[in-house]
């Protein structure tokens, strides 16, 4: 199993029955593929929909219905659409149960940086700052290191997305929880040792006496006509 799939399968366990969930672009969108299709979970997209679903089949696209990346989608029975003010009212107003976002760095205090690299990459924050400020839970799904350098650092060198600490960090090596005392190592990926995580982590980690193995969801049986590239589940 590649590292991104492992991360997505672990994050999928955090989605609970009845949750309203916003998945960020990139790795986080993989999570939807591992959520059981009858799980009663609603995906919100910040461009104005609750109840997004993968396009059931090619040829059913409408130019008026896309995800936040502009790709055609379908919609669940019971979906609702709305304008951008309501979309962000849902996010900021505490109506969104969970957001899963990618990350460039997370620091000792649990602060996420994921919206710019000064002088090199300035895509803009899009909805990320509102999501981190407003969602009830924020999970960062990212690889533990980039080009050999730890992405979990003492202090973010990159501009932070919010000063609010995230709820959980899930990487291909570990699950780490930011707390008032610091970053606590909660779980280890299969075959990964505490020492290996510490070596790959610049920030200081609090190591409980017992650190269990990371559980992951089993990949759901996939209908033959639902390619793995389909996001937000199949109809």
């Amino acid at each position: 199993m590649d590292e991104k799939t492992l991360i997505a399968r672990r994050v999928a366990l955090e989605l609970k029955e009845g949750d309203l969930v916003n998945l960020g672009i990139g790795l986080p969108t993989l999570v939807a593929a591992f959520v059981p299709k009858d799980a009663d979970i609603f995906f919100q997209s910040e461009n104005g929909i609750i109840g997004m679903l993968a396009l059931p089949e090619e040829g059913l696209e409408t130019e008026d219905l896309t995800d936040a990346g502009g790709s055609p989608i379908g919609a669940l029975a019971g979906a609702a659409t709305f304008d951008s003010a309501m979309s962000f009212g849902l996010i900021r107003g505490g109506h969104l149960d969970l957001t899963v976002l990618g990350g460039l760095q997370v620091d000792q205090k649990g602060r996420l940086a994921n919206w710019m690299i000064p002088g090199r990459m300035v895509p803009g924050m899009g909805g990320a700052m509102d999501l981190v400020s407003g969602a009830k839970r924020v999970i960062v799904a990212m690889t533990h290191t980039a080009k050999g350098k730890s992405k979990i650092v003492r202090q973010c060198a990159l501009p932070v997305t919010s000063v609010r600490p995230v709820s959980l960090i899930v990487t291909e090596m570990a699950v780490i929880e930011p707390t008032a005392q610091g970053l606590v190592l909660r779980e280890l990926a299969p075959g990964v040792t505490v020492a290996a995580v510490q070596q790959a982590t610049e920030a200081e980690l609090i190591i409980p006496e017992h650190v269990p193995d990371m559980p992951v969801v089993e990949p759901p049986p996939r209908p033959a006509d639902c390619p793995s590239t389909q996001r937000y589940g199949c109809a």
Partner: protein
Amino acid sequence: MRKTIKLAEAVARIPDGASIMIGGFMAVGTPPRLIDETVRQGKKDLIIIANDTARPGVGIGKLIDAKLVSKIITSHIGTNPETQRQMLAGEIEVELVPQGTLAERIRAGGYGLGGVLTPTGTGTLVEDNKQILEIDGRAFLLEKPLKADFAYLYAKQADYIGNLAYALTSRNFNPLMAMAAQEVMAEAQDIVPVGVISPDAVMTPAVLVDHLISKERRRG
């Protein structure tokens, strides 16, 4: 009261240097004919307020390609390398605003508010030069309203007098911008007789729409 206007006449009303709010999210809900005509007429030094600049050759990306824009207030330019290139080269000024804050600043402009207080951006680069207010022990940024000279809207349906209804995710910023601009131009996929859009289904009331872009007769 009839509001229909020919596309070229509508765009001719826009002077160089005007500020324009443009609906849409990655070009979904962006009026294609108004964009193309703006490029054709070669307007200069436009100040654009919009969620994003889509991609090169697509939606607002066409205005960027044609170098018609001197400043843009937006939440995201990551999908358009040309906008980023022009920004790094100093050819275009880009003011990045968190997406929810952008929506609320436009809403405040249209709803007659002096601004909005949001927790988004506190403690980040976004708070620079902004007033921070503590309300019940929590820090909020004062974000000021946005208004514009013109708005370009895209609706699924317009009736003859300019009542608008939007479809699915193409609604996004359109109804907010309808309230916040001095002169509002609406392009619709379909123009229908008055009454086809029932009062409950009207999302932007006709009084907000100054010009409804007429359809071009299809030949053949």
